[in-house]
């Protein structure tokens, strides 16, 4: 490997960051879809549901990040909410993969762990992850609220999940850009689900319950 062959300049770096501009602006146009997902998640938490998250590769880190947002809020005073990522236990993951195949690693955990009031969030940068699609299908069949974060052109196995409640698409074919905007989406899901949740609590308190 030779690092002398290619020169990198500040302009290369600036151009790379600027490629985020258009997909980021486009995300603002999904405000209604994002708000609807927040609202429905708040209703599930109100009913005692848990958040269950999953994804592959880089999205594994996002699944873990999304779960910890809810369990340990970064904003002081926000209540902790029950969330579990299905990517955190290598013994479980490799055990299921060996016996039932990689496509079942998340669906099998849902069959064991999920209750009907829970929320399933699947993350797939290209929308093509078979194991994410299978888990969301399993979740929808069990009555969970289902949310998919995908990228690309908005097609693929995950997008085609029967009964999917919320589909949030980042319109970019660059998986790095998709990931960055997924981080923004799930930060917003966390923060604004709390807004809806606090509303339900305020109203119930106001009604003298």
């Amino acid at each position, binding site marked *: 490997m030779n690092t002398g062959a290619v020169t*990198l300049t500040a302009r290369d770096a600036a151009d790379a960051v600027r490629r985020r501009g258009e997909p980021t*602006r486009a995300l603002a146009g999904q405000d209604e879809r994002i*708000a609807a997902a927040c609202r429905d998640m708040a209703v599930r938490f109100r009913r005692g549901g848990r958040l269950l998250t999953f994804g592959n590769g880089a999205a594994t880190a996002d699944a873990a990040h999304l779960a910890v947002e809810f369990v340990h809020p970064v904003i002081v005073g926000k209540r902790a909410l029950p969330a579990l990522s299905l990517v955190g236990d290598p013994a479980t993951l490799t055990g299921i993969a060996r016996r039932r195949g990689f496509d079942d690693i998340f669906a099998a955990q849902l069959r064991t762990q999920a209750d009907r009031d829970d929320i399933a969030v699947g993350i797939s940068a290209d929308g093509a992850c078979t194991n994410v699609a299978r888990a969301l299908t399993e979740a929808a069949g069990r009555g969970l609220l289902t949310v998919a974060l995908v990228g690309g052109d908005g097609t693929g196995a995950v997008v085609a999940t029967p009964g999917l409640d919320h589909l949030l698409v980042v319109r970019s074919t660059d998986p790095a850009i998709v990931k*960055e905007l997924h981080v923004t989406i799930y*930060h917003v899901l966390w923060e604004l689900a709390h*807004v809806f949740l606090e509303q339900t609590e305020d109203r119930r308190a106001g009604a003298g319950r």
Partner: protein
Amino acid sequence: MSGIESLYPFLYGEAEATSPAGDTGGSVFDDVRRSTREKVAEIAALREQVIAEYAEALASCAIAIAASFAGGGRLWAFGNGGSSTDAQAVAALFAAPETEGAVCLPAVALTADVAALTALSNDVSFDVVFARPLAAAGRPGDVAFALSTSGGSANVLRGLAEARHRGLVTVGLAGYDGGAMAEPGAVDHLFVMRSSSVHRIQEAQTTVYQVLGELTRRALGAPAGPATDG
């Protein structure tokens, strides 16, 4: 109206004017939509600020990381909480790239080894969970890649100090004003996301490390990657 909608009508777009609280500022739903757009605008602006302040530094940091890999070096990534998941994403960016045909480069997330983390926390102190593995396995010329939104996590700072002591190249991603990570001598390549929102800081940090990954591959002579849109 579904069962849920009749239970929480105010969540489903009914005007606040009809609510018991008597607000007139539009529905909660509209407030949340507006808040979503504002947050998206904030992260777009923060990325512009990163370009203004760090374009040059991003290029030179990528050259340093590329030189490390070219010389047989390894990259070690670490952070706490949400930043621990970013550390894993950093390691995967190099070691398990999602781009077809991209070369795999040796990178490890120190946060992925739960046995080491809990052993050190239980037997010694949580403050040494990154410094100790770096002392054991870090070599001169390796890269220590640290993420902290505050710039003040004790175990991250201890890890960076150990790395510098052993001759590793140190890269630090922080937020706010950089905290202790911004003090002279703490880190070779420092990137501070100048925001007071932990969320926007993490989002901008994700851009920084992914752009560093892309530029590092270019410095190593690889194709630019999937820069096909945007």
